[in-house]
């Protein structure tokens, strides 16, 4: 069985990279707004279906579908936030987080209303895996990995080098001080939701590219996404990537020791272990 370890590690890296995209979006929003926005579960679905509509209904190539997924989920994310979540923020993170769970149900059913319950697939040619040494990898997986890496590079550059990024980091670090410096925290919060949900939607599309999509797509992946963000350190972008890798590789490599029936338990085992020893997560700076 040990001969399968390199293949399991490769599978884990690819799965981890896919989880990293929505986990980064989730974590970025948390760092600015300080509440876990659980509606990412259905925003991933919204992104996957927006990409589907662009790709299959309009015949756009996948890269344009990625843009559509980003924009649609970003705009819907801002609308949901403005209408339902922002007015509740003054009542505390817990109230807002619970309202965001209600958002999951509403959005999922809107998708179901428009697209129905059936599974759908993107208009993509399916290609056999490439084989090298004793490993195999799908060309689509390589594409997904590249898209995921590209998105993460853009996020990193935006946060690091642009004024908006700096302002977002400032609000994340100390909202009071940022406000004193003339940064409009409401506007920055809005931008964080726009970018965060856009990234989550793109992540949903990437998760859907590897298989079929249905209205439950995002809900199914929410737990590993959440696990990745928590393990890496809520609020930390590199942390979300690292956490996603830990969860992705951990789940796949667990097959060496455990029945595949217990895969998800591994993600939670990591949460328990990491939080027991380091409550702020691997790269998290604050313990929330």
């Amino acid at each position, binding site marked *: *069985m040990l001969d399968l370890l390199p293949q399991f590690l490769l599978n884990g890296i690819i799965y981890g990279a896919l989880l990293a995209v929505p986990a980064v979006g989730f974590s970025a929003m948390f760092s600015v707004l300080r509440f876990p926005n659980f509606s990412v579960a259905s925003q991933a679905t919204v992104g996957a279906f927006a990409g589907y509509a662009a790709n299959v209904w309009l015949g756009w190539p996948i890269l344009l579908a990625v843009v559509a997924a980003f924009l649609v989920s970003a705009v819907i994310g801002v609308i949901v936030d403005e209408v339902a979540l922002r007015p509740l923020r003054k009542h505390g993170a817990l109230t807002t987080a619970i309202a965001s769970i209600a958002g999951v149900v509403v959005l999922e059913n809107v998708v179901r209303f428009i697209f129905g319950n059936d*599974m759908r697939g993107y208009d993509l040619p399916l290609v056999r*895996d490439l084989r090298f040494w004793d490993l195999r990898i799908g060309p689509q997986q390589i594409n997904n990995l590249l898209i995921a890496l590209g998105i993460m590079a853009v996020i990193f550059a935006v946060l690091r080098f642009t004024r908006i990024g700096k302002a977002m980091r400032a609000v994340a670090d100390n909202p009071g001080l940022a406000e004193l410096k003339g940064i409009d925290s409401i506007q920055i919060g809005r931008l964080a939701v726009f970018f965060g949900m856009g990234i989550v939607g793109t992540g949903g599309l990437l998760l859907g590219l590897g298989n079929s999509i249905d209205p439950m797509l995002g809900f199914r992946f929410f737990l590993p996404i959440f696990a990745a963000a928590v393990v890496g350190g809520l609020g930390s972008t590199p942390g979300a990537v690292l956490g996603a890798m830990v969860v992705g590789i951990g789940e796949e490599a667990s097959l060496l020791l455990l029945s*595949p029936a217990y895969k*998800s338990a591994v993600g939670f085992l990591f949460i328990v272990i990491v939080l027991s020893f380091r409550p702020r997560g691997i790269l998290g700076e604050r313990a929330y």
Partner: protein
Amino acid sequence: MTKFIPNRRAVLAGMAATLATPAILRASGAPIKLATLTPMTGVGGSYGPSMRDVMIGVVKEVNEAGGVLGREIEVISDDTQTSPEAAVRAARKLIDVDGVSAIMGTWASSITTAVAPLAWESKTMLLCTSGSDTITLLPHKGYVVRTQPGSILQTTVAATDLSKKGYKSVVWMGPQSPFAEVSIETYKNIFEAAGAKFSSMIYEADKATYRSEVDTALRDKPDMIVFGGYATDSTVLLRDLWQASYEGTISAQGYAVNQGVIDSLPAEVTNGVITTAPAPALGSTGFARASEILGVEAADPYSAQCYDHVNLVLLAMAKAGETSGEAVRDHLRDVSQGEGMKVSSALEGLKHISEGVNYEGASGACTFNDKGDVTEMTMLYSEIKDKKPVSIDL
């Protein structure tokens, strides 16, 4: 105090109005309440709507013809969300608030298992489309019957037929479910007796990818892989196996590789997959009628079963002369089997109910044993060719 004294003109006008009203509005008494409890959302969400619609369609026809025992039938529909917890909540509401005498159409064994105790404790009849053998072993006091053949019967028939094709190495892959252990045990016994190597893998349902599971399964170089899961998992597995260049046979239950799965994947991925399904009574009057109600060429097996559920309940009520869950339980077999006149719908059967009827429906003969299992089944084998299942003989 003024007293209302009807004069002759008022009485005549009233009588005329009564005669002009449709038959059902003249029916006396409160409506008979029946429930459909199908998966409208969740993994079974693609089956539920037509299961519900066919039942409502039958009731509409019967209502238009005057109802049962002179009473209108009211259908209350709810959604199991393909989740046992949600199904139990819905069933509680149907039983406690609506007071239905029968719940029809529960799908997936975990859901029927969760709902069944509520049914027998409240003396409500439960008709399900679930195949797990454990269901009819529950102490249900006769309140549960199923139109889906039990899984031992189904898997034994399928495994026996498939084993004749001479496969050398077989892997069973599926998630944990009440159906899994029975299925693995049956396949193992039959294939090992036929000289094949057999192994099984229980994986976690609803994962994004099963690449590592596929890598593990392919170590045994199987020439047949049997799927034991539902549609969402099958889609991922089919794609992963194709990408891994697996060339052997794949066999799956019809619901695991259904038209939705086939439509969402390229033809080369699904070509050659063999599906097994308890055959509805293709070519029967009942099956044609169920398909006609749904406006489709051929009703799916679950909708065919639901067509039978509602017809059986209505006939049993008519036979009993009352509408309680207990009455349905006690008289279901009087109308589903025996020497009576063969009928394929309640509409037809209600006219002959006093002479005795034997209902044969859209899903089959509907002959039940004491446990509530159907005793006869025909297995339908199909091979997927260019995105269409084509019937084959094994």
